[in-house]
């Protein structure tokens, strides 16, 4: 492995890790604050990708498609939260797991009914169609750098909201003691609806961003969901910081694994998780 190849892999790992963070942050926020384990999170990633594909086809413009798809994703999150999750907050995780598992079946099949079982792709959008020359014969696509930058900016925004705004104070307080926040006259129900919609929209947005650089296929949400679970378990459930570093670690492992240890590549992230569980059962940043 020469240096240029190493650099490309490093950039790929970074970009993939940041994308994973976007999905995992929603997952960890929804659990940390609402106490809900949302298996349908991966399905939202898939729906985001399909929305980007469909609307780009119709409108002919990727950016316009995203501008319309994000509110749709937020609305979908709102409907799911109000319709189904409302009754689940005080119940065991078991029922949350089952209900969101049922949601996966419904959303996956709805995808098949609407968009069919074919694999699709989205063209790289202007003005990011080009590549940067790293060396004489190694190119790196600009769009991937753009995705990494957007994810990083969003990570910064999430950090800023949670650390430095009034909403962030309420979110942090709600994660520590729900009843106390309610007792102080804050409407925790509205907060929950907001968190769920935003969390789910983050996953869908990640799917939209990933659409031009990945193949859009049925069931694409399932594998990303499991990967994000590994990220969240490694980082510590409910910890945004943990999700960030966990996502980068897993992003690197997934890109370097097949090159460095091909025989173990498919299991590598789970082995890392097992190792973390052995040392710190509650995650690295919990």
């Amino acid at each position: 492995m020469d240096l240029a190849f190493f650099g490309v892999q490093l950039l790929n790992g970074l970009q993939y890790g940041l994308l994973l963070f976007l999905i995992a942050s929603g997952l960890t926020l929804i659990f940390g604050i609402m106490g809900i384990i949302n298996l349908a999170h991966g399905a939202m990633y898939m729906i985001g990708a399909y929305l980007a594909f469909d609307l780009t086809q119709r409108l002919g413009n990727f950016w316009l498609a995203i501008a319309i798809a994000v509110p749709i994703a937020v609305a979908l999150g709102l409907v799911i939260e109000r319709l189904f999750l409302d009754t689940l907050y005080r119940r065991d995780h078991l029922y949350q797991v089952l209900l969101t598992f049922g949601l996966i079946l419904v959303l996956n099949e709805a995808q098949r009914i609407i968009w069919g079982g074919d694999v699709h792709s989205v063209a790289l959008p202007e003005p990011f169609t080009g590549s940067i020359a790293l060396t004489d014969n190694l190119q790196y696509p600009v769009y991937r750098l753009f995705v990494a930058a957007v994810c990083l900016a969003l990570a910064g925004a999430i950090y800023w909201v949670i650390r430095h705004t009034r909403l962030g104070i309420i979110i942090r307080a709600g994660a520590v003691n729900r009843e106390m926040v309610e007792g102080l006259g804050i409407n925790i129900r509205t907060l929950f609806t907001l968190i769920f919609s935003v969390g789910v929209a983050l996953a869908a947005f990640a799917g939209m961003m990933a659409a031009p650089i990945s193949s859009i296929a049925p069931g694409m949400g399932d594998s990303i969901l499991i990967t994000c679970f590994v990220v969240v378990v490694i980082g510590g459930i409910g910890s945004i910081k943990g999700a960030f570093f966990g996502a980068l670690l897993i992003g690197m492992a997934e890109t370097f694994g097949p090159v460095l240890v091909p025989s173990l590549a498919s299991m590598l992230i789970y082995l890392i998780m097992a190792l973390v569980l052995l040392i710190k059962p509650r995650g690295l940043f919990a």
Partner: protein
Amino acid sequence: MLHRYPKRVLVLMLALLALMIAYPAWGPAVFGDSSAFFMEKLTLMLIFSLFAVSLDLLVGILGLVSLGHALFFGIGAYTLAMASPDFSPASMWWMLPLVMAVSGGVSVVVGLLVLRTKGIFFIMTTLAFGQMLFYYISTASFTGGTDGVFIMFRPSLAIGSADGASPLINLDDPLTFFYFCLTLLVVVYLFLRWLTRSHFGQVLDGIHDNEHRMQALGYATTGYKLIAFVIAAMIAAVAGMLAAMQYGFANPAQLGWHHSGEVLMMVILGGMGTIFGPILGAFAYELLLYFYEHLTPHWPILMGLTIILAVLVLPKGIAGLMLHPPRRSRASGLKDTTLVERLTPKAGDPSTSPRPTAKSSPGRSSS
């Protein structure tokens, strides 16, 4: 609640058993030409019942929600596929212990890791370990990858003759195999009923309610949990082996997490923590599946909605309906509680009317 069930449960289970045993008598009359097909369906229901009761030991009795239980189901299927000779049937006499030994060994390693976690972490880590093996088997060369492996010969069960050349019990015969699965289910059911009522089962029940208190009482709770985890894994592996015999192949989908979700649904649909409930759940789930599959190619959407509906309106499952029929609750909510009954002085009973609380306290304090 674990210890004694109302008589109607026993009657229903015995009726179900009798119905199964007598299938050759009524099956052809009811289903006509497709009788053999329905017997295969019933065989699968029995196999999934076995799978579901094994998960109930974890979810219902111990309170540990595993989303990776199909891992052990798959291990059973693949152990059979890998260990079967290519040109002759294996003997069930060593295949069954082998399947249990392999799944037991894996479950000790996995259990030691996942039992370090609780609640939501347990859900996520069991899911992740299940997927780890799923991806390993899907990509490994010796397992046939995503296509799976065919099993050329079903293991034979020879009694009396050691070579298995003329098996007394021919598992290739669908009816014999059906009875074989039924027998295993009955044995496992009785074993689990005995286990949950034994001292060991009481400890598991205690861990479910309050693990810290059990630790304070001097129980090494992790050891108990690990033993239960291993037992559940072994039963699941036997179910997986039977399923592989029935299908004639082992396939990565058998250990994927969708399969874990399905079996969890069977447990909840039937009623967790009751052992008999998950059997009803497995039958109900497979019947619904069969019905939906014939209704529309988009059956997963119906199944998904059914799952959501079951979670919202039937959290205690079918068993919950049987143990606590709905007609007596709600309107007379308070009257149901025995404490209130005991504390309420009865007219014309001088022994309880003056100091009802003092009367009832000795009985309560001893529990």
